[in-house]
């Protein structure tokens, strides 16, 4: 198992003819992801890396039976791309694009919800089910197939943690970068539920950061519904209030969203919170005993 993506993932790349789209298509294909098509309006009928390009997602879905889409279009066109994917029947949409206006994300999310699809991102590195499928821009070589589920608001911090896990012989079932914007699709709660229900996952790492109160809500959920060991990490303890720390969502505002509050809530829910990423493998091992 694993969650969200696996061997039956049939991926299309929206914006496959762009620089980033093309580069990461190659990486995903090289990893073994089943990239069945790409879209680029006006370039239908051509090929990129041997992958057929379509004018619309509708056509791509019809011709390839794609079930998953990854979006590399510029931020100002991303909401439209998300909606097209959802309307065309794609069930899982991963939006890499960074810098989407928040109201665009809200609109697109509502649309995706109405169509019964799922959204990951925007402003995210995508996700990985090691040994099965890579849908994103994560560096494949640091991953190893195994039974730790990793969910995170940050890209490089995920890599850092996964690197330590792999170095310590602890493979991953699925790793999901949820995105750094204030409003994104699937988040801690939904993903915790999926990982809890995934037979292959034996323990979970959740990597949060300042801003919002999703980690507090996740902690509450862990307390009541998650029986698997959970280890956490929160970035931004040294961040000043009122300042966005890189991610649009990483901001302490109105006296809320501090790292201290999140860590307290997580510890109160029985989640062990690491002080540095390198501590995580040992903490997981202890918790899994």
């Amino acid at each position, binding site marked *: 198992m694993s969650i969200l993506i696996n061997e039956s993932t049939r991926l299309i790349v929206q914006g496959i003819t762009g620089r980033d789209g093309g580069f990461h298509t190659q990486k995903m294909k090289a990893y073994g992801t089943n990239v069945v098509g790409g879209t680029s309006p006006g370039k239908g009928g051509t090929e990129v890396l041997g992958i057929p390009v379509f004018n619309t997602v509708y056509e791509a879905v019809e011709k390839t039976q794609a079930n998953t889409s990854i979006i590399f279009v510029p931020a*100002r066109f991303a909401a439209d791309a998300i909606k097209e994917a959802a309307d065309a029947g794609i069930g899982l949409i991963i939006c890499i694009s960074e810098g989407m206006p928040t109201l665009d994300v809200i609109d697109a999310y509502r649309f995706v919800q109405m169509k019964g699809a799922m959204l990951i991102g925007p402003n995210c590195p995508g996700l990985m089910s090691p040994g099965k499928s890579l849908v994103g821009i994560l560096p494949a070589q640091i991953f190893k197939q195994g039974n730790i589920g990793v969910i995170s608001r940050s890209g*490089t911090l995920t890599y850092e943690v996964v690197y330590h896990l792999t170095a310590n012989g602890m493979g991953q079932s699925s790793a999901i970068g949820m995105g750094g914007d204030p409003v994104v699709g699937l988040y801690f709660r939904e993903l915790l539920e999926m990982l809890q229900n995934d037979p292959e996952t034996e323990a979970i790492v959740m990597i949060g950061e300042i801003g919002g109160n999703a980690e507090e809500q996740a902690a509450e959920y862990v307390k009541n519904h998650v029986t698997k060991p959970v280890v956490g990490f929160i*970035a931004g303890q040294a961040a000043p209030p009122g300042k966005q720390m890189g991610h649009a*969502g990483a901001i302490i505002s109105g006296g809320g969203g501090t790292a201290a509050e999140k860590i307290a809530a997580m510890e109160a829910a029985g989640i062990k919170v690491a002080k540095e990423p*390198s501590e995580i493998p040992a903490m997981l091992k202890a918790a899994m005993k």
Partner: protein
Amino acid sequence: MKIHEYQAKNLFSSYGIPVEKYVLCNVAAEAAKAYDDMAMERVVVKAQVLTGGRGKAGGVKLAKNREDVARHAETILGMAIKEFPVTKVIVSEAVNIGSEYYVSYVIDRNTKSVILMMSAEGGMDIEEVAEKTPEKIFKFPIDPLIGIPDYLARKFAFELFKDAAQVNQMAAILQKLYKLFVDKDASLAEINPLVLTNEGNLIAIDAKMTFDDNALYRQPQIHALFEPTEAEKTEAYAKEKGFSFVHLDGEIGCMVNGAGLAMATMDMIKLYGGTPANFLDIGGSSNPNKVIDAMTLLLKDPKVKVVLINIFGGITRCDDVASGLLTAFEQLKTDMPVVVRLTGTNEKEGREMLKGTHFRVAETMGEAVRMAVTAP
């Protein structure tokens, strides 16, 4: 992006949201003249400054004659509120306050929507109300597919008012404020207080709006109102270069790829007893020019004593990163100690390339931070 009260009120007016009369003034003499022109007995002189807590800081004063207006304007225009110098005031009509309400629209992460917040506890610090008496705050998530049709506006308005005259005014204000919020890509639109005057009219006597930076490209009218502070100018400059930068007050300059990792780096510096000089996410490539730009930015800060470069080599391999760093530092003439931590793909090769150079090379984040904290 923040704007001033008077700018928010200009927007309110253009959307038909009632505000009191006001005149913007840059000097005390203008304030006195405004008082004459307005021909009202009681006015309020209010500092226009891009921060909160203006009232407590003495930036809002009632005046009943020309002399008081001039005197208050003089005082307020000399103030700084939370380090923001006050360079403008408005002289505004003092309305006859019957009761005060709170109304705002704000982005809500949990419901992934815009939410309307209302309270009969207007004029108070809403976060305090939320903490102490949360039952006094009405919250309604707005479905972006639906918006606020008449029936919803009425439903909301009836939460605070009984009388049809006020309900109709309130419903119109709620619809117009939502339209303004959405049209202009706001992240906050707040009226606190919304006043019911003794004459039975609803008027916004304060107005606060902030906007989504990611949407400014399609909001030229709003973008034109941007008045960056010095810190924001540096941040904007960094953004042009493709960085995320936040100035802090410490001694260890940081250069990291990735926002989460950059925050974690700052955190570890503190954990290990040091002080970070900044947050700096340089993004995902190893382009030497990017490194030069980033170092230039860090070296501008005289407090910086050491630079910590923390790179996770993922898609970009560590050996490519190392060669980028070497190229960059050939052009940078600096004696500043630079600690480099390289982890990820081809990390050994990368570290090997940096040995015996200007750089102090570390293997783990912990080691790198310890080296930076104890440098030189």
